[in-house]
């Protein structure tokens, strides 16, 4: 019998486990994937020529096993072991409505490969649903989460600059990464031409300067390699393996079980409390049960909804904690891949930079903040960078021999790329359900994911691209390429919303403490709990919610109220 069980060891589960362990609870973390070791299982030490096949996965293998995962930018030979085989982990989508569910099943989950961009939601994000009527009102406001953002940022280490922006609150930052000369010029032009818009350095969970409490965990400063998704042997990016699980482990209170796929939660029909988790051993297919006093769902947005749906019983035929019928609904992802690329002919030809900084530029939201929007609610931010073209010459340019080498030795012009991340509205019709017939190889129902962007997103994408072009042009650039539509939903890898927080048990699944309305000792602090998506990269918010809920759960437990 454990005090607490945390389902999932990724971004949010790692923090839940750490916070619960540090408050004295005996915690079991259940991970469906295999165990991997920090450092030993990474491919970040191999030189480029040591990677097989020019760091590409064999084509036939991509086709057979990675039909979905291959769409993710970070999938390559060096990271292959961190992505699920789609052939082993199928789900269905309606004809013509693709959804790319990008996943990694191993200890640490997607925290190993995450993009590290770390932004707070703001007051206007927590108020958005109440103001424009989409979704249900968040049961919390910025002030509820602010101290927990501080807490998590301090622990994980977020490099960032203080900007004083109401739509993107500052945090407890370590020193920001610096902009190069091209980026400084771009920033100056955009901010001068468009009052209210800001170009800032990306806030990233990479240790620009490791602090003593990071070094205590064996983490060291970022070496500016920008191969973070291979796993970082320096521990310079926050992941469950480099950071949260080691912190949990040193309390002596942590137990981890891997290769254990959660089938369902068991609820005591009399008290409503969750009593146990049923798992299937991934290797032996044998079922077993773990009991605890408190349960944290951190399986990731879609998988946490799947567990609740699969926990149906006679009294709860629609799934556990689902009287609201909101479990599995309101699936959101950020609009992604809305990229504009421009050449900057006037930028200084004699300036360069050295090292591969692990973050880029960020342009915080300005639509429906300092500038009106053309017929849609909410808004978008951009990630990008300004870099000099150079390095390996392009094979598509004709030429041979010394000519190629000379081309490679020349510095190309500065190039700007900015890629928008747009907020997607909560829509109950965007939902995941259990497939009525198909099961996976462990006997669990597979999911059917039915999700599409709507008219609000389409209007937003149009202006996002127009604004992107206008900003590059305002900075003296010439646009050379632009996406014409957002990527397939899911590719933002920010899926969320499938078991939302809210005040009303009739319209939401979890309350303002991420505690299930229908099961007082069940908490969910991954993306499932999000009542809206903002346009900010969400992992930091999941971690802050996890720390806050863990603190609250322990208080309730100690007061005998769980």
């Amino acid at each position, binding site marked *: 019998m454990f005090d607490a069980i945390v389902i999932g060891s990724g971004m949010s589960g790692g923090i839940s486990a750490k916070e619960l362990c540090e408050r004295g609870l005996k915690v079991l973390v259940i991970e469906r994937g295999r165990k991997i070791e920090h*450092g030993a299982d990474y491919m970040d*030490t*191999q*030189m*480029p*020529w*040591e990677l097989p*096949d*020019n760091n590409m996965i*064999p*084509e*036939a293998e991509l*086709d057979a096993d990675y039909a979905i995962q291959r769409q993710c930018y970070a999938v390559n030979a060096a990271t292959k072991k961190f992505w699920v085989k789609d052939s082993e982990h199928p789900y269905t989508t309606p004809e013509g409505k693709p959804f790319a569910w990008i996943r990694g099943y191993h200890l640490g989950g997607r925290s190993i490969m995450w993009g590290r961009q770390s932004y707070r939601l703001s007051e206007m994000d927590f108020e958005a649903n109440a103001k424009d009527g989409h979704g249900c009102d968040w049961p919390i406001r910025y002030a509820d989460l602010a101290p927990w953002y501080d807490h998590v940022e301090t622990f994980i280490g977020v490099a960032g600059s203080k900007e004083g922006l109401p739509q993107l609150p500052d945090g407890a930052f370590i020193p920001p990464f610096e*902009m190069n*000369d091209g980026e400084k010029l771009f920033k100056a032009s955009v901010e001068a031409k468009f009052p209210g818009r800001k170009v800032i350095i990306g806030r990233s969970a990479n240790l620009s*300067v*490791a602090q003593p409490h990071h*070094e205590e965990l064996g983490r*060291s*400063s970022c*070496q*500016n*390699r*920008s*191969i*973070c998704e291979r796993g970082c*042997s*320096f521990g310079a990016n926050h992941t469950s393996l480099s950071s949260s699980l080691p912190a949990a482990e040193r309390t002596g209170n942590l137990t981890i079980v891997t290769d254990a796929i959660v089938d369902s939660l068991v609820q005591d029909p009399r008290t409503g409390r969750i009593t146990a988790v049923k798992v299937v051993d991934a290797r032996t297919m044998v079922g077993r049960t773990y009991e605890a006093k408190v349960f944290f769902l951190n399986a990731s947005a879609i998988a946490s909804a799947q567990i609740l749906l699969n926990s149906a019983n006679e009294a709860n035929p629609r799934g556990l904690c689902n009287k609201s019928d909101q479990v599995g609904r309101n699936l959101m992802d950020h609009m992604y*891949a809305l990229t504009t690329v421009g050449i900057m002919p006037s930028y200084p030809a*004699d*300036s*360069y*930079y*050295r*090292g*591969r900084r*692990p*973050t*880029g530029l960020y342009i915080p939201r300005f639509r429906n903040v300092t500038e009106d929007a053309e017929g849609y609610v909410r808004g978008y931010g951009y990630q990008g*960078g300004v*870099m000099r073209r*150079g*390095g*390996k010459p392009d*094979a*598509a340019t*004709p*030429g*041979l*021999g010394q000519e*190629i*080498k000379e081309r*490679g*030795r020349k*510095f*190309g012009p500065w190039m700007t*790329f900015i*890629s928008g991340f747009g907020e997607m509205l909560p829509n109950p019709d965007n939902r995941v359900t259990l497939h009525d017939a198909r099961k996976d190889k462990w006997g669990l129902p597979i999911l059917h994911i039915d999700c599409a962007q709507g008219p609000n997103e389409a209007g937003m994408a149009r202006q996002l691209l127009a604004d992107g072009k206008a900003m590059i042009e305002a900075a003296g650039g010439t646009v050379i390429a632009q*996406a*014409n539509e957002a990527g397939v939903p899911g590719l933002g890898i920010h899926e969320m919303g499938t078991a939302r927080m809210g005040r009303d048990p009739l319209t939401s699944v979890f309350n303002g403490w991420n505690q299930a309305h229908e099961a007082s000792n069940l908490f969910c602090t991954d993306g499932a709990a999000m009542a809206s998506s903002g346009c900010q990269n969400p992992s930091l918010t999941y971690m802050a919610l996890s720390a806050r809920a863990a603190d609250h759960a322990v208080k309730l437990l100690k007061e005998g109220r769980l």
Partner: protein
Amino acid sequence: MIMDASLAMNRRALMQRIGLLLGATALPIEAFAAPATEATRFLAAPRFELLGAVADTIIPATDTPGALAAGVPARIDGMLSNWAAPKTRTMIVEALNRIDVAAKAEKGRGFAALTAAERDAVLRPHDLAALQKVAPPAGVPAPHPMSSITYVADQGYFKLKDLVLALYYFSEVATSTELIYEHVPGKFEPSIKLTPQSRPYLGVGPF
């Protein structure tokens, strides 16, 4: 490997880590560097020779070593066997064949049998024609702006040339002579002044 003493970190712990990293690379270097013998090669000898001649013409030894010194033909041969799906393999082999056909038509001998100057004279117009941009195939959407996908007249030749360049530039030889690749830059220096001797760094990853 370039370190910077100004970095605030536990230097001893860092050096230990780097020691581990270096130790960890010893095995794979040997594993991947094992030269394929003729018996273990994918391509039969004449075609492997053709591949070598083409790679050597695309990136010859000049003031820096070329594709042969970088072991590019053996790497491509390995990729034809391990990486390429049958369709890609056929595309690349057929692209090689077309170069050989052009050599025979123009010089009366196979490409591999030509002098370096003759090879250059044959491949140069071939390269120009092969890399003419064309529209994407019907029903295929235009590639994303950040994508490296390009549609040209001879897609097999483009793939071949792209592999020659990638395997050359990211080879152990070229990363220390042609363009520098720093695996562990250490510090990010946001502004450095270029001199006539400066060359771009090779990048991996998005930044």
